[in-house]
């Protein structure tokens, strides 16, 4: 309404002018208050990761329990519903495979698939096993009904839920990003890792995973930058610690991937330099020495077939 309009209105009804003025004043006051209040609220929310999540507010720290449940669900889904219970563990880890899954012995993910629950104890046990997934399988290998068609996607909701419930649990992002990349969802993987970095700024594992995302997208320079940043942060965090407490696995991954990206960029000296740095911390220095010689001899550096370059969390519970 223009000033002229207001004058005309006032002329027509003498009582309307104060009401309109009051309404205008109220509107201006409300608008000013909103402008004044909104930025601090926004800032307040921004300082606390997940602060706008109703579930997190309702559950408080108890949400970590639910997060753990969701994470285990993702693992159970990876095994098509099979998951040993605490009672199965009570049996003293009847098979080496079960013991490996329970984390008692080192990985032994082959064989014994038929006797995952141990020998049948009685007819009730035998009959019972026909009513739930009682054999071990992996979604991406030998899932019931056959693998393929991206059935691995089924574990993703649980990882996202787990990440929502416990944003500081880094494995949710790394495992999730691994499967997203495997499903060809590079952009989604990167978005998920960046979400993790918002809650865990400078986390080395997440920086490594972010570099993998850029590397898969053929953005080698950015991948190298991210991994270099990761290396710097690892040194800052870990170098002062005793050797036994250092997370050398992540460091080895970073260094080998830095060597890989330098090799791809044709910078052989830098490649050798990263490999040489990996020598004192790697689990298998002999293999790295061999690769250093190969690179010096003019061969390109190729990924070493080891968990260090293979997976950062394929099997969620391993």
């Amino acid at each position: 309404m223009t000033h002229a309009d207001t004058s005309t209105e006032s002329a027509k009804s003498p009582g309307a002018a104060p009401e309109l003025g009051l309404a205008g004043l109220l509107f201006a006051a409300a608008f000013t208050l909103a402008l004044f209040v909104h930025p601090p609220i926004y800032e307040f929310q921004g300082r606390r990761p997940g602060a706008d999540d109703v579930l997190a507010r309702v559950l408080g720290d108890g949400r970590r329990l639910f997060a753990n449940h969701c994470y285990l669900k993702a693992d159970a889904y990876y095994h098509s519903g099979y998951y040993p219970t605490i009672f199965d563990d009570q049996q003293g880890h009847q098979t080496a495979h079960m013991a490996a899954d329970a984390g008692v012995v080192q990985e032994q993910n082959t064989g014994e698939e038929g006797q995952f629950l141990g020998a049948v104890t009685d007819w009730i046990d035998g009959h019972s096993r026909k009513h739930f997934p009682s054999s071990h399988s992996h979604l991406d290998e030998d899932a019931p009904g056959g693998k393929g068609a991206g059935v691995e996607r089924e574990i993703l909701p649980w990882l996202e839920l787990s990440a929502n419930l416990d944003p500081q649990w880094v494995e949710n992002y790394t495992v999730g990003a691994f499967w997203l990349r495997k499903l060809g969802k590079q952009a989604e993987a990167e978005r998920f890792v960046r979400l993790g970095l918002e809650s865990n700024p400078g986390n080395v594992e997440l920086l490594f995973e972010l570099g993998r995302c850029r590397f898969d997208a053929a953005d080698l320079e950015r991948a190298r930058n991210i991994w270099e940043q990761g290396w710097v942060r690892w040194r800052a965090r870990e170098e002062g610690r005793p050797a036994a407490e250092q997370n050398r696995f992540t460091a080895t991954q970073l260094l080998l991937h830095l060597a890989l990206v330098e090799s791809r960029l044709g910078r052989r000296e830098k490649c050798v330099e990263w490999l040489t740095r990996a020598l004192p911390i790697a689990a298998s220095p002999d293999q790295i020495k061999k690769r250093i010689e190969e690179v010096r001899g003019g061969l390109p550096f190729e990924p070493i077939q080891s968990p260090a370059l293979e997976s950062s969390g394929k099997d969620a519970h391993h």
Partner: protein
Amino acid sequence: MSHISAVASVVILEMIRRKDVYVLLFLTALITLALGAVNFFGDPKIARYLKEVCLALIWVSSLVIAVFTAARQIPSEKESRTLFPLLAKPISRAQVMLGKFLGCWLACAASLAAFYVFFAILSATREGQWPVANYVQAYWLHCLFCGLVASLTLLGSVWFTAVSSNATIILAFVGAMLVLGRHLHKVAMKTGGLAGNLLDVGYYALPHLEWFDVRDLIIHNWPRIDWDVIAKDTLYAFAYGGCFLALACWRFRRYAIH
């Protein structure tokens, strides 16, 4: 048989006219569809988490329907004194009990059918497949489960005077058997002594309700169970259900009404 079916028809009519089943079906559909609308990494084909949530809601709903429908039958008839004109007719107490059971079971089966049709449609829209035989097996085993629970609850209803105490005890028992049933023997071995022996007796004597829960096989698209296994489950459920009902009839015969 006509007496039993007449009593059963009243139980079914009562359930049709109560709002409980509709509310549970509506809530199940609402929660499932709301969760189905959540976008996980822009992948519309993710289905198993939705199947799991939907089946969990169906199981909770069916348990609530079976327990509370069966638990209120005899006590509410006694409290509202509708049992007097009924038993003044040429009908035996055993027929009343069997009619109550049949009514509860058929009512549960009918409501379960509606729940499973919803589940099948939901699953098909996501996964694009109709494993009808698997669903029929799951539905039948679920019906057997409801029958067992209803017979057990009817037995409880002639032992415990309050509906709430009976329902609470049955729900606790069913929950414990679903979670611990197949592990009782392992726990017994670990525990040892008298407690271990008692647990072992429980393992062999109590009904293994967990056999009727094949949700994980359905969720993760495992092949269907052999039909002879289903036949054994059916016989097992009939045997236990028959025992519970026989005990309930025996107890109800001695039940003084005044």
